[in-house]
Structures are given as structure tokens and as C-alpha cells.
């Protein structure tokens, strides 16, 4: 006897209840607090803020808790929340040369004004599991740290620029388009590309960047400068007629130096790639800079080698993990109507083939 | 700014916008069909219908041009205050408001591009009256044929020839709205 599947609503409610139970796990283990996530899983929080395009560590921590640590799910929660927020206005462009740097390194110069500041990095840790952490030992003694530089730290690339050795970026007064308020139009422009990459999936952008290092649109990059630290955010208040500081945010900025052969119209000089990302997200910032540089081939008069990382439409259409995961996972939804039409068609084609070539089939 | 410019918005914007949209959509999807649209109380001589369309459709992303008797400081302030739209010259307008005479020549408005035919202006034409008689309309949205009191026919015939480019029209009077998209074929 056939009974149509009913009770979708009850199934959904039950699934949600079960999910909540699984999220909490063993109730004899203490529950995670938002503060714990924010303070102790801060790099996950940073990634959720960067790809969620919302600078709010507490909300990012809440999203991580709610999503059971599935960061793409957490990013989705943040994005869906973000769209409902009213816009009060736009900030002034942040001045990263005024950053209070926690970390600032250059691979292109041994030293530079402002110095090399290693900061809190995994770079030279030996990747040995630290079983002391498993024992929940007492907190370590405070690290001996210099106070972050409060005075402006000049960008290292500008030292090359005084010699004319690196291509000058033209300052632009135009308000950049907002990817979240206007449909993506292709071909795009650099402001939109950088915006898209900054909120793009870390893994996707990393893979694209890596491919440029391995010869797909090869463009050997040096990290001219990588800096991480807090910058003030200012906003002009129309009623006041001037900008006031409304807060501070931690950013990671990377500028790469890439060699450039020169063209018919330009003498040989270095060129740049750029990445700017919320929070401490240096893998992401470097990746963005490499992909940015690869995507600039047309503007810099280079040839199209057909590499994926040079293909603006390919990169921008596929770097967003919320779009990607939604469409990928939607194939879980029922498609039986379409499948039925395919079934009919394949049966029909096979029937017709059998009628057309009956001898062949008999011979086989 | 006169007080008049600050008044006359929808009392319950989410609901009135939705109801006004359905009237506008029905009008545009069924050229010639006259729909009721109201809620706005705009400064004269702007009709309730035109005012309601403006509140429902315009914002800071849609530059508006005004012409003829509607090119007044009060109407300008009313639109800017309630919608945030910029008041611009006809060539930059996404929406244009006027009488049939004051909107001429139609060639001053954007008709879209081959790749983006949607980047065209929509004209809100204030009329003395709207009646289901006059020119004969055929095309998408019309079962057999419809009749509408149009100010003339030639301009609409020329506009239809531009398809898929072209202008789209709303006609308003009092609390009534009718529409004529670029797809409609107009005959005497």
C-alpha cells in the first residue's frame, strides 16, 4: 500500500531538536562560553569575521558555538544576520600606515624604519603537540612584549617608490562599489575584486594563490610587507561636518612585490599585489595579494596564459563559500520530478535504439 | 523646506509599499488595465497615484527628473525627503515625472543598452483622466486586445520598435494607474 510521505514539519522540528542536543554534546562537560571562544579560538573568530564581512568578535564567537565549529556554517550565520542590519553610513578609508603594529615583517629588506616585529606568529614554532595544554595547566607567564608602536609605521613599498622602482598606485577618490548591495558585474574592477577576495573562502583563495606559485600564471612574489595591528576607524558625521573616531579594528595587510619585465610603454619596474583582511588572517592576506596580482595581467599589459588565477570571472564566481556550499548542498533536496523526466527519456531512447539496431543487439 | 514637504508619506510603509507594488505590477503586467493605487499624500499638483508610485519605487539608487508643473521646490523637497532620490536632468533619470507635453522629447531619456536593456528610464505620465477606450493595445500581458486613453500613438509605436530597448510608461491620475511597457503594440 502506498502512503505519501507526510509530516515534513514534524520531521524538521525533530531534526532541529536533535541538532541542538548534538551541539551541546555530553552535558557532564562544562559548556563553552562565548568569551572562551572569542579569547581562545581567536583565529577561527577572525576567519568568521573576515568571510562573514562583519567585524564583531562576540557575534562571530556565538556563530562558531551555534554551528558546532563548522566555520562555513558560522560565516553563513553572520552573513544572514549582516544583511538585516541598517546602514548608517560609510567610514573614511582606514589609514594602515597609522596601524599600531603587533606584527610587521618584510621579506625584501633585512631591516627598515619601524623595524621587523615578529609578533604572535606560528612561523617558528615546532609543530609538536603540546601535551601540557591537554593537562589544562596554569596560564603561562606573560610574554615579554614591547608595546605596539603607536607612531605611524611607513609602508616599506614606499621606499621603493621614491626610486621609481615600483609601479605607483593611483589614488582614487571614487566610492568603491559595494558587492553586498549591487549585483556583480563582469568584467569587474580591482576594488570589487579585492572586496570579493577579502570575503572569499580562505581555502579557495589559498589554492588559487598556490597555483600561481607553481607556474599557472607564474608571478614570483616577495612579501614586501605583512603587517597586523589595530587601526582607528573614522566616520564623517554629516551633522558635525567632520570625521570622528568610532572605534578600532584589527586588520592584516599584505603587499607583495612582483617582478615585471616592462612593456612597450613602461620601463622595467616592480609591481604589487595587495590583500587586506579583517583580524589576524595572514595566510588569507598573502593569498589575496597573490591572486590580486595574477588578476592584474590585463592592466599591466601581460599575456593571458589561460591560468585559472588570471581568470577574473572564474575566480570571482567561485570564491564565495556561502554561494558554493549552498548550491553544492542543494543537490540533497528532492529532484525526483527532474529525475523522472530523465528516466522516461533514457527508456525512450533505449527503446528506439533497440528498434533501430535489433540485429546488432542479437549479434552481441 | 516647507512643512508640506515633510508630510504625506505612507502611514504603514511595509504594508502600503506592498499593496502599491501589486497595483503597479498588475498594471504593467496587463497593459491597459486601470488599477487603484493610493496611500501617499503628495503636494499638488502631484497625484496620489504618482506620489504612491514614487514612494514605493524611488530611493537613493534611483535618480528622478521632474518636468512641467511638477518642477517645483515643494515637490522636489518632498521626493528628496521621503525617498532620498537625487533630482537630476532627464538623461540621467531612472524615473521621470511630468505631463505628456513636458516629458517631450522622449529621446532625452535612457533606453538601455543591448547588453543591459533594463538600464532604461520609466516615465510617470500625469494625465487628466484614464479610460479604457481609445488606442488599441496588443502584446504580452493582453489576452486579445485592450483599450486605453493614450495621449497619442506614434511615440509608443516608435518606442516599441526599439524592443528590447525602450522606455516603459506609467499613466496616473487621481488614485488610478495604468501602464504601457515597451512590448505593447499600439494602434489607432
Amino acid at each position, binding site marked *: 500500500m502506498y502512503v505519501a510521505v507526510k509530516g*515534513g514539519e514534524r520531521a524538521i522540528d525533530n531534526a532541529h531538536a536533535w541538532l541542538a542536543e548534538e551541539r551541546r554534546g555530553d552535558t557532564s562537560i562544562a559548556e563553552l562560553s562565548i568569551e572562551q571562544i572569542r579569547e581562545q579560538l581567536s583565529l577561527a573568530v577572525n576567519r568568521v569575521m573576515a568571510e562573514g564581512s562583519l567585524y564583531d568578535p562576540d557575534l562571530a564567537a556565538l556563530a562558531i558555538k551555534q554551528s558546532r565549529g563548522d566555520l562555513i556554517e558560522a560565516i553563513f550565520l553572520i552573513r544572514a544576520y549582516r*544583511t538585516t542590519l541598517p546602514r548608517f553610513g560609510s567610514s573614511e578609508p582606514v589609514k594602515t600606515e597609522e596601524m599600531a603594529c603587533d606584527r610587521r615583517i618584510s621579506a625584501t629588506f633585512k631591516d627598515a624604519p619601524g623595524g621587523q616585529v615578529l609578533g604572535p606568529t606560528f612561523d617558528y614554532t615546532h609543530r609538536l603537540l603540546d601535551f601540557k595544554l591537554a593537562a589544562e595547566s596554569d596560564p603561562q607567564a606573560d610574554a615579554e612584549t614591547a608595546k605596539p608602536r603607536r607612531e605611524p609605521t611607513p609602508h616599506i613599498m614606499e621606499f621603493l617608490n621614491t626610486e621609481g622602482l615600483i609601479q605607483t598606485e593611483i589614488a582614487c577618490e571614487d566610492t568603491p562599489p559595494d558587492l553586498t548591495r549591487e549585483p556583480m558585474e563582469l568584467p569587474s574592477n580591482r576594488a570589487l575584486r579585492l572586496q570579493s577576495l577579502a570575503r572569499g573562502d580562505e581555502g579557495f583563495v589559498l589554492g588559487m594563490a598556490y597555483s600561481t606559485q607553481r607556474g599557472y600564471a607564474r608571478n614570483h612574489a616577495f612579501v614586501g610587507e605583512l603587517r597586523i595591528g589595530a587601526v582607528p576607524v573614522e566616520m564623517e558625521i554629516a551633522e558635525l561636518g567632520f570625521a570622528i573616531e568610532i572605534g578600532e579594528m584589527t586588520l592584516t595587510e599584505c603587499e607583495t612585490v612582483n617582478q615585471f619585465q616592462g612593456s612597450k610603454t613602461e620601463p622595467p619596474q616592480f609591481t604589487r599585489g595587495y590583500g587586506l583582511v579583517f583580524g589576524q588572517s595572514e595566510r588569507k592576506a598573502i593569498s589575496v595579494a597573490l591572486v590580486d596580482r595574477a588578476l592584474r595581467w590585463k592592466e599591466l599589459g601581460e599575456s593571458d596564459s589561460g591560468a585559472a588565477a588570471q581568470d577574473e570571472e572564474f575566480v570571482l564566481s567561485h570564491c564565495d563559500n556561502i554561494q558554493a556550499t*549552498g548550491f553544492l548542498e542543494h543537490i540533497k533536496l*528532492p529532484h525526483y*520530478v527532474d529525475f*523522472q523526466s530523465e528516466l522516461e527519456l533514457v527508456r525512450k*531512447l533505449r527503446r528506439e535504439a533497440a528498434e533501430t539496431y535489433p540485429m546488432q543487439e542479437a549479434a552481441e | 523646506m516647507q512643512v508640506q514637504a515633510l508630510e504625506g508619506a505612507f502611514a504603514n510603509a511595509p504594508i502600503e509599499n506592498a499593496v502599491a507594488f501589486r497595483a503597479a505590477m498588475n498594471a*504593467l503586467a496587463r497593459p491597459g488595465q486601470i488599477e487603484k493605487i493610493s496611500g501617499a499624500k503628495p503636494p499638488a499638483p502631484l497625484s496620489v497615484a504618482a506620489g504612491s508610485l514614487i514612494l514605493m519605487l524611488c530611493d537613493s539608487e534611483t535618480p528622478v527628473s521632474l518636468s512641467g508643473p511638477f518642477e517645483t521646490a515643494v515637490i522636489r523637497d518632498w521626493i528628496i525627503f521621503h525617498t532620498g532620490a537625487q533630482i537630476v536632468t532627464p538623461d540621467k533619470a531612472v524615473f521621470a515625472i511630468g505631463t505628456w507635453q513636458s516629458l517631450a522629447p522622449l529621446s532625452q531619456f535612457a533606453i538601455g543598452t543591448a547588453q543591459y536593456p533594463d538600464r532604461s528610464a520609466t516615465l510617470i505620465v500625469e494625465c487628466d483622466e484614464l479610460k479604457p477606450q481609445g488606442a488599441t493595445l496588443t502584446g504580452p*500581458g493582453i489576452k486579445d486586445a485592450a483599450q486605453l486613453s493614450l495621449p497619442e500613438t506614434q511615440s509608443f509605436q516608435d518606442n516599441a520598435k526599439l524592443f528590447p530597448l525602450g522606455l516603459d510608461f506609467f499613466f496616473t491620475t487621481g488614485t488610478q494607474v495604468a501602464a504601457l511597457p515597451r512590448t505593447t503594440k499600439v494602434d489607432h
Partner: protein
Amino acid sequence: MTDYNFAYLDEQTKRMIRRAILKGLAIPGYQVPFASREMPMPYGWGTGGVQVSAATLTPDDTLKVIDQGADDTTNAVSIRKFFEVTAGVTTTENTTEASVIQTRHRIPEAELRDDQILVYQVPIPEPLRFLEPRETETRKMHALEEYGLMHVKLYEDISQHGAIATSYAYPVKVEGRYVMDPSPIPKFDNPKLEMSAIQLFGAGREQRIYALPPYTKVESLDFEDYPFEATKADHACDMCGAENSYLDEVIMDDQGSRMFVCSDTDFCAGRQQAGHLGALAAVNAEDAA
């Protein structure tokens, strides 16, 4: 009650979507770009349709949501619940009672009236996408009305298989101008695209809205010697006996025996209530007795 705005979206967003819908109706079959928002449900799960419905609904509407023709599939239930909570609209499973119907993959069997609106969820709005993946190229092809590639594809099907091997999302030409993807409805539904109701198509992830005004001319692409054919399983519904409805094939037991039943659950239930019984309905009745 809800802390969100009526129908979830803010007024500015709805205004932007409404403008896109009007442009879509003015240029039937043309895909209007719109700044699709991130919705509280995943891309690919109907965010385009949901945004179009949210911009369309008024408190007086009665909403029906179907997925694969059925009102009780989980995603249909989920979307219906979303609008019950955020817009407070009445919902129904009855096609004739509904003023707005949001659908995924089907057009209801009952003929729609001119006071109804059908909103489609669209995954890939570009009919040329699988022949040319680049938006920059397909946009040019639409601008130049260059649809040769599509005809070549259909013709290659014929030379290889002896028939056009597209059974759903079967491309149509609208008013002799734009080639349009009718969304993944089975081609059985294509002839119904010419109807009295307004049809709106929303593709959230791909940021496109398009539309068909009532009575718009919609032709399924074909060749003179290989005319379009709206096909379905060659059976009658085993529950209601309908011979002209689109059927789901249901596997009944471990031996793989099958039965066929209407995909439009409301249509099928209505017929059964009116006393129409299919081959297996009689057996069911006996079981019950």
C-alpha cells in the same frame, strides 16, 4: 511575533527587488541583474524565489509553496513556515485558494487564473550556461540574439540519440526574442508557460530576476522535423486515475515493482475526494476496510 520587518526583507531591499520585477515584466525573458541578499536559508534552496515572494506578498495574500509539485516536501514546509512567521500570511495547500504560489520544479496541474502569481525558484537562470560558462560571453549572445549554439546542441542530440535529449529545464523562446530557462520544470510543463497568471522567476545566488506577463508567447525550441513533445510516463495515476497529469514513479517493494502517482499532491487529493479512483486506490480502500 517577529522582530524582523514585514516579509523579513527591509523596505530598501524590497524596493530594489520590485524594480527588478517590473523591468522583468517589461522585457519578458530578459534576466534582470539584482543585488540578491543573503537569506537565512542557503543559496540553492530557493533564496531567489523567497526574495521575489517577500517583495510580492501583501498581508491579504494566501500563499502556497510546492517543491516537486508537493506541498509536504521538507523544503516547501520550511519556506511556507518562514512566511507564516515573517509575513503572517495565510497559507494553503489548495491551488485554487492561493493568490501567490512559490514553486520549485513544477507548474500546478490546475489552470492558474489571472488573479494568481506563480513564483519560480531558479538554480541557473542562464539557458546558455552549460554551452558557454562565461557570463561575459552569454550576455553578448543574448544582446546579439545569437542562439545558434543552442540549436547546434539540440541538433547534435538528434543526430546522436534520434531525439532532443533535454527532458527538464527545456529552453524556450519568449515573444520571439529572448531564449529563457523555464527553471528545471519537466518539459511536460512547458506548454503551461503560456498562462493567465503573472510568472516571476528568482535566482538568488546568480542574482537574476526574470518574468513572463500573462499570455506572453512562449515557444519551446524545436525543429520542424523534430517538433517539441511534452512527455510524461505512459500511465494513468494509480491513486486518482488521472491520465493527463505529470507522474512520479514510486518503487513499492524489494522486488522493484512500481506504481505511478501524480506529482501534484493537491490535484491528486482533489480528484480522489471527487470520487476518481486509480487502479491501486481500490486496493487501498480494500486494505482499509
